[in-house]
């Protein structure tokens, strides 16, 4: 039980990886990639958790916060950055998808590959 979150996050990562390998539609591959990224984020956020601690925002009137009372803020800050990186990647990927569809009339990978051969 103590590792349940990390085990499930690993499972999510594998679902994403499997999806990227087996889905044939390029947009589904992109979604699978997002699953994989979220799995990494879950992994980090679970590292930050502390039993019985509160969110990392100083409680009103707490002049001397103690480390045990608050969740570790560092992974949160890191994962905010990771989420942002994810959006940017999605934006670029979607732009490429529009162009690919424009040229080949499909986003189905085998069809696109067929189109490339012509």
């Amino acid at each position, binding site marked *: 039980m103590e590792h349940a979150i990390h085990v499930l996050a690993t499972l999510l990562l594998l679902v994403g990886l499997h999806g990227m390998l087996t889905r044939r539609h390029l947009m589904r591959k992109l979604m699978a990639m997002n699953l994989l990224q979220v799995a990494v984020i879950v992994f980090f956020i679970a590292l930050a958790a502390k039993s019985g601690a509160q969110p990392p*925002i100083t409680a009103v009137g707490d002049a001397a916060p103690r480390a045990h009372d608050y969740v570790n803020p560092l992974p949160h800050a890191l994962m905010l950055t990771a989420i942002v990186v994810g959006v*940017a990647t999605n934006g670029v990927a979607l732009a490429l998808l529009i162009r690919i569809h424009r040229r080949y009339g499909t986003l189905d990978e085998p069809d696109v590959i067929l189109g490339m051969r012509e």
Partner: protein
Amino acid sequence: MKFRFGSPVLDTAVRLLTPFILLFAAYVVAHGHYSPGGGFQGGVILAAALILVNLVHGRDVRWGLRPSTSLSIAAAGLALYVGIGFLAIAFGGTFLDYGALPLGLPPPQVRAVGTFGIEVGVGMAVMGVMVLLFDALMAWEQSR
């Protein structure tokens, strides 16, 4: 395909909601010090308001940003961030060392001001880019 919904209900809802969304976005940017939120989240909400209007009213409403404008806003936001970094160098600190800014306040408050400055920068950059992304992805078909 026409990408426009414009029913009276949606129309009214958007009219009512948009100012509050914008206000909330400003609050999120400004209040990042004290509560969850900050430049990034605020910028996203700001962009969401603009995108919402565009989605519902289509692009015939003259309410939105030209791509060159949103690009410039994004660049200005990032320039603000980098500029604060250079300002810190100019006043003898290392890059992004807000503590070096000569504001005549106690050190933590000086740092808080610096932090606020970059949060605004991040908000502008994120808002600009999100609107730009949406416009670029959206407008492709029409531009044929």
